[in-house]
């Protein structure tokens, strides 16, 4: 079979389709978005044979996938690393219910925080939930692992986590596909107690999960994705996991590393192989993308012999992505470097697009806030976070999806006045609605701006659950009708918009202002499509 060029994300998507996927559930988040988009654009996705419509957030996505697994079909959930925090409740409990149809959770971590607010490592979540975890090192492995993960999930009746990192998610390479497998038929869970996590049931299920641990480890030990590659020079051994394995091998012509190498792409850790390396080599360098997950386990808290090296011991940096140069330095190989960056080169940070409706919203808000001083605008996750940068300098917080509203509430409770929340339409339906309900319940004096650009902008313009229903949602939650305003974020409406914001800032209750104008990126794409259709 000829090779197709796939991003790591796309390789996962294609493998899931080939493995007989019935549904993907996800909320967009860099670097995971392309998995679901690939399925949406596939033959099966377009025909509606595989469910691929975006979920409201990662928690609802995870729950729907558990439901599909309960019904006997293969389901996949995809998210970025911080999305797993949102989905953590159903995720953790899914390890107790176990899986009926194959249940695969794909989490794309973002070390170096290219598009994220932290660089948490999802391998800890898999260990926390006591489930198997995979960490592919290249696109072909991303494909093969995903294909196998569904099989393994059904064999051991457990959810399985696949951890990707940015560089693999967004790097393209040739991938060879396997045979297509049909979808599972409907086949609901036979044991009526399996998915009822009453304490009496849950205790038994938890015991069963603990009993499966040696089997999981045995699968890792015999896994084709974990390899012990012997080397003649036993003065040092190297453990490299996921994409770090590639950075290691880049430093040796033709992949001929003189030291023994243990490549890890499946967890729980195969302890026998690690013991073998320690016995043979004594000294071990551990290269892993993300937190020192393997290193911590291998060295323990004492590391009295100091023979375990990696991110904790300082041979590799404690934070940020790895690359071939960092690994070379850790190996004691000569570092390479071209010419320095000329001094006149300045940073070019991302910025709001020319014509972006958020620019007009911030201009109006800044004007209305002039007399109130700085530090009173709480914001959220999305393109509009760029309002933190000059020339706007309009917002003072960005923590997690939905936090703008509840942080404004907490600050108002503390006595700060006025308190303003700025949140996007999609972020609002993701996690802002319950926050707003808290404020309504107490009639907290906050002014909430829901920037409605009719899309999930930052991740490339995915459909938003909020489309056309924001006013209704706010009304339904209990915001008084005369304190809900739709405004038009355009230069010509500036004075009028400022007046509305100023008036609501005075109001001692919850008001919602919804600046409404389509994202300039989705608008221009729509126009291009329309033009093409006319031709």
């Amino acid at each position, binding site marked *: 079979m000829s*090779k197709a*060029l796939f*991003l790591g994300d796309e390789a996962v998507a294609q493998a899931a389709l080939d493995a007989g996927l019935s549904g993907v559930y996800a909320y967009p988040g*860099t*670097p995971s*978005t*392309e998995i679901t988009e690939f399925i949406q654009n596939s033959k099966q996705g377009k025909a509606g044979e595989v469910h691929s419509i975006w979920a409201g957030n990662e928690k609802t996505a995870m729950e729907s996938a558990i439901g599909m697994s309960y019904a006997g079909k293969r389901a996949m959930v995809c998210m970025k690393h911080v999305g797993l925090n949102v989905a953590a409740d159903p995720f953790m409990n899914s390890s107790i219910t176990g899986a009926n149809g194959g249940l695969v959770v794909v989490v794309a971590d973002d070390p170096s925080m*290219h*598009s994220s607010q932290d660089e948490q490592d999802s391998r800890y979540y898999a260990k926390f939930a006591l489930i198997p975890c995979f960490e592919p090192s*290249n696109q072909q492995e991303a494909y093969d692992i995903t294909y196998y993960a569904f099989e393994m999930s059904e064999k051991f009746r457990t959810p399985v986590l696949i951890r990707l990192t940015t*560089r*693999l998610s*967004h*790097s*393209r*390479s*040739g991938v060879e596909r396997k045979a297509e497998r049909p979808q599972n038929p409907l086949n609901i869970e036979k044991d009526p107690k399996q998915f009822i996590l009453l304490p009496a049931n849950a205790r038994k299920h938890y015991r069963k999960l603990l009993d499966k641990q040696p089997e999981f480890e045995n699968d890792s030990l015999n896994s084709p994705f974990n390899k012990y590659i012997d080397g003649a020079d036993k003065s040092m051994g190297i453990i490299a996991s996921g*994409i770090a394995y*590639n*950075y290691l*091998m*880049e430093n040796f012509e*033709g*992949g001929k590393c003189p030291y023994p190498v243990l490549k890890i792409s499946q967890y729980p850790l195969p302890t026998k192989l690690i013991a073998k390396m320690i016995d043979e080599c004594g000294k071990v360098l551990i290269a892993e993308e993300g937190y020192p997950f393997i290193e911590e386990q291998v060295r323990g808290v004492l590391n009295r012999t100091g023979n375990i090296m990696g991110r904790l011991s300082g041979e590799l940096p404690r934070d940020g992505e790895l*690359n*071939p*140069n960092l690994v*070379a330095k850790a190996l004691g190989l000569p*570092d*390479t*470097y*071209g*010419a*320095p*960056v*000329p001094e*006149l*080169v*300045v*940073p*070019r*940070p*991302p*910025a*709001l*697009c020319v014509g972006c409706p958020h620019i007009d919203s911030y201009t109006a808000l800044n004007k209305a806030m002039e007399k109130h001083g700085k530090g009173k605008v709480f914001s959220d996750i999305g*393109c509009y976070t*760029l309002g933190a940068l000059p020339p706007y300098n309009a917002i003072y917080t960005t923590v997690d999806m939905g936090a703008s509203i509840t942080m404004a509430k907490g600050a108002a409770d503390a006595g700060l006045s006025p308190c303003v929340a700025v949140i996007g339409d999609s972020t609002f339906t993701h996690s802002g609605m319950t926050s707003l309900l808290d404020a309504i319940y107490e009639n907290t004096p906050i002014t909430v701006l829901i920037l409605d650009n009719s899309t999930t902008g*930052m*991740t*490339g313009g995915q459909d938003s659950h909020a489309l056309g229903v924001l006013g209704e949602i706010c009304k339904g939650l209990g915001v008084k009708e005369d304190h809900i305003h739709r405004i038009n974020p355009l230069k010509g409406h500036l004075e009028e918009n400022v007046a509305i914001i100023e008036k609501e800032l005075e109001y001692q209750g919850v008001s919602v202002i919804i600046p409404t104008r389509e994202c300039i990126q989705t608008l221009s794409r729509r126009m291009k499509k329309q033009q093409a259709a006319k031709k």
Partner: protein
Amino acid sequence: MKIDIILAGVGGQGILSIATIVGAAAIKRGMYMKQAEVHGMSQRGGDVQSHFRLSDQPIASDLIPLGKADMIISVEPMESLRYLPWLKKDGWLITNDQPFVNIPNYPDFDALKAELAKVQNCVAINADQIAKDLGSARSSNMVILGAASPYLQLPYEEIENAVRENFARKGEDIVNVNLACMKAGRELAEKK
């Protein structure tokens, strides 16, 4: 054969289509390829780069080590300089010399040109003007691809075929203007 390229530009300038076209030509020859892209936040008018690697042997890393890139291909002059730490000593820098100014502190144009002139092997051309003269202002990335083509170690006809395939669904006019842009870039680079 092995060639490592850093593609550079500003989000939205079309550096990825260069990679798509060269990648398609290389894959047809049965070569290995890895191409790391930047998605997400940086695409909003920020600096973007792609590590693009071709080889007749399997490729290990998705990222090119510092000091090992054979070429920098850039559609923006200041962005081309940002990646000099990756370029090897005798490597080539091929760039558009027309600045894309979307920041208030963009450097002085003449100082920028002087900095480019210091690079040992540099081809800097006005790709915007060539593309405009040929009737497709948006195709300056194809002019740059043309200027880089003599150094790619791939037969020119095969790159032309990949351009044809890449733009086929947009109609013959678009295919032809892109081919013309690429040829003009190539001819100019060969003269330099």
